[in-house]
């Protein structure tokens, strides 16, 4: 059991850190709900994994990946925002996922995560994937911020906005897929949204914002997992609650700063 706890802590730090880092872009792009809703798209993939006896996380990733590409393509064709398309896709995915899950216990595991199933391989994979995600995010970060400042300016500087967005959606998909182990599909969106939101409140520059966002993500994951092991409950809700405490602290810091004499 202690071993499983250590492995899940490793996954927690890796996922929390990379999700926080990646999520900082979502908050800047005002797409926080995209990350949250996109995570539910994993559900049918998890269900197929359970039904057909392969690793559900691979199913989750495949579904997230395909949906991300599809949403990216549809947004180019229809000119609808990611938010609108993800909004439509996630409810459909949720419906299909629930229909596919015959076994309620498996559905519960998919929705809320199960850290007792985290082993050495998952921990190792989480570290490697998180490092890759952070590296790739660094590559596209400047391009995305330039695009946020002015899309025309970014294009005139040779930035391919569509390609950058696609890579970004894929990175979110991968991070969400590994995060599901800890928090389940229902709450994994939290990791890409709330740490970044807390960091945004108390950051005046980009480098601080990124560091804080990633750190808050990791701290929320670790505290949630440790508390869950102590209280013997699902870690997901406790990860969320830890993160919300950080968010509240950030609000108080900002509030005090605003009203400082």
């Amino acid at each position, binding site marked *: 059991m202690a071993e499983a706890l250590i492995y899940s802590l490793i996954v927690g730090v890796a996922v929390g850190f990379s999700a926080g880092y990646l999520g900082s872009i979502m908050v*800047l792009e005002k797409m926080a709900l995209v990350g949250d809703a996109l995570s539910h798209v994993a559900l049918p993939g998890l269900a197929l994994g359970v039904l057909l006896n392969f690793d559900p996380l691979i199913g989750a990733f495949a579904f997230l990946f395909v949906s991300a590409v599809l949403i990216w393509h549809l947004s180019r064709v229809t000119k609808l925002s990611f938010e609108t398309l993800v909004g439509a896709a996630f409810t459909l995915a949720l419906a299909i996922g629930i229909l596919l899950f015959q076994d309620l216990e498996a559905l519960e595991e998919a929705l809320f995560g199960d850290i007792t199933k985290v082993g050495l391989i998952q921990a190792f994979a989480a570290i490697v994937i998180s490092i890759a995600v952070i590296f790739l995010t660094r590559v596209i970060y*400047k391009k995305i*911020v*330039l695009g*946020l*400042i*002015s899309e*025309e*300016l970014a*294009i*005139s500087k040779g930035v391919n906005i569509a390609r950058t967005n696609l890579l970004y959606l894929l990175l979110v998909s991968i991070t969400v897929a590994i995060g599901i182990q800890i928090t389940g599909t229902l709450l994994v969106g939290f990791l890409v949204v709330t740490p970044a939101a807390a960091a*945004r409140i108390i*950051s*005046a*520059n*980009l*480098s*601080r*914002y990124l560091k804080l966002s990633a750190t808050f993500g990791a701290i929320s994951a670790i505290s949630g997992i440790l508390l869950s092991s102590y209280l013997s409950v699902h870690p997901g809700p406790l990860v969320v609650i830890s993160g919300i405490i950080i968010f509240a602290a950030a609000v108080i810091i900002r509030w005090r700063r605003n009203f400082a004499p």
Partner: protein
Amino acid sequence: MEAPDNFILKVSNLSVEISNQSILENLSFRVKKGVTLAIVGPNGAGKTTLFRAMLNLVPYKGKIEWNGKVKIGYVPQVLSVRDLPLSVKEFLSFKREADFDSVLASVGLDSKAVLDKSLGALSGGEMRRVLIAWAIVDKPDVLLFDEPTSGVDIDSEEAIYGMLRKLTAKNKITLLLISHDLHIVREYSDYALALNRCMVFFGDSKEVMNPETQKLIFGEPICREYGEGHGGSINL
């Protein structure tokens, strides 16, 4: 006769259509190296579209030729920087690492006071100065500046144009700017290109204020035939 390499930009028979609507019609002019050209005209005259065509952001007919390998800087009219957690230093380093103290000093800002400030915390005037610093920090050959003083009060407007003029002259930057204010155009630019869908005036900016030209600029679009403008010699 001017030597051909004296021109940094030659535009010939440029037309732009967006969604089947003609935005620019048959525009031809040339810009000499190192000058300041102001582009004026009413809303919807095609000023920003002209910049977009020069930057290859919209499809066009005709020819836009730059003289050799030219580094083009661009400052769009609308930059959404206020909502971003971006410090002045980070914003400038997006372009190039440089001696920011002297760059900021050249636009009249004290780097100690603003370098670590968030862009959102700057006043309108400070923001425009930072934008000018940002525009020149990577030393472009040509700078396309869309409304350099939008959002700035009238008093600071002249100071900002004066500074822009001085800095582009010092760094040998050819400046193409879009402005609404004909008085500013006359005082702070060498040449003026007046647009009202087609070219209604091209020549010495001192003459842009004459009543006939003004009527053409701000009246109903009348496309008249001009010879090719030669950056100074007026073909009216």
